[in-house]
């Protein structure tokens, strides 16, 4: 860390007045896969890349953040076995909302049957828009204002043709249904956020593809925020890396989360269950949350799970969970994240160009 964050003497984790937990969770990954070797073949003539991403998930012609969020939210509701009319907020974090103006969240709320007595809004904070919505949801449920909140992180990420991002910019995400801790599959033990104005990655209004600060994305952006949020939360909760059975980081590629884990004292096996970037790429706002769903699919009662997101611009949310005995009975009520990842149809660059609207037809 070349420029450490200023630290406070005592970090108090964020905790709601009423205990809050994960009532249900749901994943979605579209079925198409574009191998990184195929991107390399088109643009470099080689077949390798240094990001340790084998392939990325690509949305089909009839899919977008709306349709993918609807399916993930339905999966979360199925696992929670609740009546969707009790959901008081539907929040969707993404940087690929289909409309520039008109909420994704109202369409999702309508489709899952949460309308009309609910809040609905779209969240924006690059890749951490979903965990931002979770944080707010913890507040809404934990204050007693709402019984249930569904927070979604979902993206159909775009990389400029030939850009380094094109190897990894994938599609997918997850929905986390927050509710009272007493009926939850995992209890929230605390959360913590760090944010600074760091210009590592951005996309201006009306621009189709993002810009990035090249090497600037690593140390001052990703690693500084992720490690600070994680270490301060663990410190505030009186825990260390060894107390967590699983840790999930935002995954812009496979190397960044592995290095972050190493810096924080985690062993590779603690990252394993939630490290999905090698198989689906970087799903942006969906990335950390999808990893969390893959962990929930496997975690045993009593195990602690640490989730650490990262959003360019820049900031990081760290959230600590403890899995309850209810998890095992409920998780098979919706398809596992592994089921979605195994559902795989490989495409070439030509089909990718068609599916992602990279061909000008007029």
């Amino acid at each position, binding site marked *: 860390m070349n420029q450490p964050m200023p630290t406070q003497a005592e970090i108090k984790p964020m905790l709601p007045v009423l205990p809050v937990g994960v009532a249900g969770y749901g994943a979605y990954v579209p*079925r198409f896969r574009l191998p990184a070797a195929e991107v390399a073949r088109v643009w470099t003539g080689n077949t390798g890349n240094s990001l340790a991403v084998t392939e990325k998930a690509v949305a*089909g*012609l*009839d*899919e*977008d953040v*709306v*349709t993918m969020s*609807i*399916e993930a939210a339905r999966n979360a509701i199925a696992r929670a076995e609740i009546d969707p009319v009790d959901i008081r907020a539907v929040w969707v974090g993404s940087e690929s909302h*289909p*409309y520039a103006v008109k909420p994704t969240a109202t*369409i999702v709320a*309508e*489709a899952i*049957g949460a309308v009309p007595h609910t809040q609905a809004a779209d969240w924006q904070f690059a890749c951490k828009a979903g965990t931002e919505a979770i944080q707010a949801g913890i507040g809404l449920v934990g204050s007693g204002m709402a019984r249930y909140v569904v927070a979604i992180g979902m993206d159909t990420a775009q990389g400029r043709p030939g850009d380094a991002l094109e190897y990894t910019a994938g599609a997918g995400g997850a929905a986390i249904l927050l509710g009272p801790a007493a009926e939850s599959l995992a209890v929230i033990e605390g959360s913590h956020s760090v944010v600074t104005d760091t210009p590592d990655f951005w996309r201006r209004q009306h621009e189709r593809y993002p810009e990035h600060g090249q090497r600037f994305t690593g140390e001052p952006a990703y690693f500084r925020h992720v490690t600070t949020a994680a270490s301060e939360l663990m410190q505030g909760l009186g825990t260390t890396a060894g107390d967590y059975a699983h840790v999930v980081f935002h995954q812009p590629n496979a190397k960044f989360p592995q290095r972050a884990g190493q810096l924080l004292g985690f062993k590779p096996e603690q990252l394993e269950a939630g490290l999905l970037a090698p198989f689906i790429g970087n799903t942006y706002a969906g990335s950390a949350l999808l990893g969390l769903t893959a962990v929930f699919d496997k975690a045993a009662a009593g195990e602690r799970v640490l989730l650490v997101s990262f959003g360019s611009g820049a900031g990081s949310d760290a959230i600590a969970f403890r899995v309850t005995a209810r998890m095992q009975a409920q998780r*098979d*009520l*919706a*398809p596992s994240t592994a*089921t*979605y990842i195994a*559902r795989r*149809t490989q495409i070439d660059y030509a089909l990718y160009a068609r599916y992602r609207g990279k061909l000008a037809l007029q």
Partner: protein
Amino acid sequence: MEVSRNWRLQSQRYRMEGLRCEQCGTVIFPARAHCPQCAGESFASLALRGLGEVYSFTQVHDAPAGFEHDAPFFLALVRLDEGPLVTAQLTDVERETVHIGMPVEMVTRKLREDGERGMLVYGYKFRPLLRQRRPDEAVALPARVRVPATEAVAA
């Protein structure tokens, strides 16, 4: 494309909300004014589970206006567990695997878009069943609510 018409069809398109005839129990989807079985006019609304199987299908190459971007695609008659036969696109399928009797489930997908500036229309399609059916879902509803195939096709 008419914005108001799409809006009125939302509960049907997004959530597969149909009707159950209060007189004879027939499940009706999409909604209509009279029960095809008993001509009854009093209904309760019913959210269909979206599970069923492919009754028949065809591949569309020459798509109607508004659907050209999706061609070629599969159009199917799907027999829902609750009885009704619905016409819908199949998605996430390949020519080699789609077949009559294929178990399918409803998903909400983008049906069409009105150019670069118009609205996006979402609605139901069906795809091969992804999740495991729960034991209580494997059982179809009692026979009395099933609409005979001939009637449903005629409708």
